[in-house]
């Protein structure tokens, strides 16, 4: 799942080397924390959140094959 997120996001941003995905999990949820270069945050989110919505849809579809719930969170470095 981590690799899937990286593959998608790296193809969209100007600074692919700054794409970092970390994961944390509890009993029934795995949360992926996505962090990108600050100039790329807008690109990853997109107009009205269209891009992040599409990324999440694809990731959640892939995650539906395994038992745990998956959440994709975009880190805001401010």
């Amino acid at each position, binding site marked *: 799942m981590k*690799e*899937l997120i990286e*593959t*998608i996001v790296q*193809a*969209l941003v100007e600074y692919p080397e700054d794409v970092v995905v970390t994961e944390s999990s509890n009993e029934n949820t795995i949360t992926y924390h996505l962090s990108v270069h600050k100039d790329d945050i807008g690109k990853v989110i*997109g*107009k*009205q*959140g*269209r*891009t992040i*919505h*599409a*990324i999440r*849809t*694809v990731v959640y*579809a*892939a995650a*539906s*094959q395994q038992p745990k719930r998956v959440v994709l969170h975009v880190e805001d470095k401010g």
Partner: protein
Amino acid sequence: MKEVTATAQTVEEAVHLALAQLNVSKERAEIIVVDEGKKGFLGIFGARPAIVKAKLIYNPIEEAEKFLKSVIEKMGIQADIQKIENGRNAEFILSGEQMALLIGKHGQTLNSLQLLAQLVANRYSEHYIHITIDAENYRARRKETLAQLAQKLADKAIKTGKEVKLEPLPAYERKIIHAALAERKGIKTYSVGTEPHRYIVISPDQ
């Protein structure tokens, strides 16, 4: 976009070096000669090296295809991708075992893959490139379903004399509905709200 600059004694050598750095053949790069260089007097005075820039030329549709291939693979799905290119439009037709997973509810996964592939293609293109992704003839089936739904809801609007609101739909699916009801008498259609929550209203004539 990948770009390198190379410096050598002659333009030819510099081009050679630049292409070697990009690791591509001449056809895949755009070469800009920054400085032709000078041999100089007796090869000592006023000698200047040649400088060239080489820029990788991408094929946007190929980049979108590569993207799609690796995303589907990382989703853990085996699929064949057939590509139909038509100028600035490209259609990718997916086939394989787990297409239901790639299509998703109301085609939302297919639409998301399409949006992302389109973003990738247009990063590498100066002109707008339109990408369609289809699987198991989903687009045609969906079109038929939407057109039928449109007629049914138009009936309802006329019968009740009240406006009928549809669920939010992507732009090209709304277009299908508008087109299906364009000739229909007794009602008109319009869209309300902002993307991605824009939806159609079928309104009976007063």
